[in-house]
């Protein structure tokens, strides 16, 4: 971590720096969310900074603060050996409209870390090419690392996904298989009934 780097950011972006502090030797710069990408691009490009590696990007949820989320990025320069922590605060109390610029055009590692951050905290990175869930499945409801997500919350069962151009039997019909292996999804069953009777096993095999 480097003090000179903090001074460099302060000198070049006097209006973007909200505060700076250093604890345990980790220099931290808190940035205005509007200049998040601009400062990051400067740190990557400027020869005296040369931060060529985005080590870590994550968020912290402060439930009772406004703005609620703190986006935390750790940068590292392999050539110069210094590190810095960038922070930015975004989001209102409800956790809606949490948006910040993406860093994917600067570092390739931002791609997966921003996806994870979106998955876990619901932070939307504007300009991200592929903002999907990464650790959770697409049907997951909510964002698990938010402080208002109860750790013991139970998610609803997910119906079988529809795959196009795949001709196969549903795993178990209503009267097939062992009772403990039978999964019922009411909404799936209702749709099936409305359209056509379920396919008989013999028909498909012959």
């Amino acid at each position, binding site marked *: 971590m480097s003090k000179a780097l903090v001074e460099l950011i302060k000198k070049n972006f006097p209006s973007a720096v909200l505060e700076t502090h250093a*604890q*345990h030797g*980790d220099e931290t710069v808190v940035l205005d969310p509007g200049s998040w990408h601009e400062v990051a691009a400067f740190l990557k490009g400027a020869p005296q900074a040369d931060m*060529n*590696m*985005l*080590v*870590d990007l*994550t968020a*912290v*949820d402060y439930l009772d603060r406004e703005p609620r989320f703190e986006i*935390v990025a*750790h940068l590292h320069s*392999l050539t110069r*050996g210094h590190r810095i*922590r960038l922070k930015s605060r975004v989001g209102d109390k409800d956790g809606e409209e949490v948006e910040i610029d993406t860093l994917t055009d600067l*570092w*390739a*590692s931002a*791609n*997966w*870390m921003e996806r*994870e951050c979106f998955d*876990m905290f619901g932070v939307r990175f504007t300009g991200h090419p592929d903002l999907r*869930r*990464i*650790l*959770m*499945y697409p049907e997951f409801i909510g964002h*698990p*690392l938010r402080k208002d*997500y109860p*750790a013991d919350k139970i998610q609803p069962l997910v119906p079988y996904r529809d795959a196009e151009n795949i001709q196969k039997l549903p795993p178990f019909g209503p009267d097939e298989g062992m009772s403990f292996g039978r999964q019922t999804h009411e909404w799936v069953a209702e749709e099936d009934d409305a359209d056509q009777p379920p396919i008989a096993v013999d028909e498909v095999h012959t």
Partner: protein
Amino acid sequence: MEPLDLDLDDSEIKLPSEPMLINVGPSHPAMHGTVRVVMELSGETIERCDVQVGYLHRGFEKMCERGNWSQVFPYVDRCNYVSPMLNNVGFALACEKALGVTVPERCQYYRMILGEMARVSDHLTAAGAMAMELGAFTPFLWMMKGREMIWDLLEEETGARLTHSFGRVGGMAAPPTDGFKENSLAVAEHLLGIISEVEALLYGNRIFLDRLQDVGVMKAEDAVSLGWTGPILRASGVPYDVRKADPYLKYGEVDFEVPIGEHGDSYDRFVVRIEEIKQSMRIVEQCTEKIPDSGPVNIDDPRVVLPPKEEVYTTIEGTIRHFKIVMEGLKIPAGEVYSYTEGGNGELGFYLVIDGSGTPYRVRIRPPAFLNTGGLEMLITGAMVADVVPCFGSLNMIGGECDR
């Protein structure tokens, strides 16, 4: 009947072609852990691919926010389950950085020896599995034999073969056993023997070389941009090792080299791991010379370290100390800290947000395997479908660490 000697050159035959989607995983023997790769092929070349992780997500970061600081250790154990000791030590160092304490010299060397043993077990697994996937089963079994010795050693020390939970904030759970030095040296010697046998088997093996050399080449700048760290970054020619760049414990006082590769192909990633095993053994040998035979292992701070059981059962002060630490958790001053160590696969970072109570507010584990696997898409796009398995093996993705 039609004539069979049609002049094919005159009439161009157009065959219908469409890209073929191939799915590998999530449960597939070549996908260590659980990861799914969906590839779009044109012929045998991978045009596009999508790497999907998360099948092993167990919500560790959320779970860490429910207990106290000592209860994080079992979780980090299960992150990289091939070298759990490195995770234990990494997390303990993060807490110690936040507390502003340094453990005694004996403990530092103890942690280094155990950590290097765990690193070797990680590299043996990665290199062995890589060889096995190319059909070389013998080196794999030899390396597993070596890993078994390491686990026996760790079992002797910690009581558990795999998930030790042996680290403590401010020290280790127990001091080294009596025969620790001799056992470590014996294991180191055996391992070096295994490594030279494996080298003799593989480095002259045409199949092995052809499948790995110039396959899955990653340029240095791309590797850095992808956030790669550890052996696979060094294989691309970037000499970044946290142990050298930013020495923690006593790494500044031991003599070792950082092996780097030239081409950044799968073969270099294999060789760098093998060379690192030798360097780790050098570190172990130096540490066994330097580790003091007696002296404290834990720091002398009643607010952090549990009292000896003898004291807990016989004195009221000991009972109260024990009760306070177990029930309330040890208190770390409020703030935040990012601490990083060299894990088996790269920079293992812990970003802790501390609110001053006994419970972590946020434990962010910076998993090297997650970012390493993030580079798989770039690595295999444009490669042949048969190269997916060795390329993926060379990254050594550990599912538990990647998905947490």
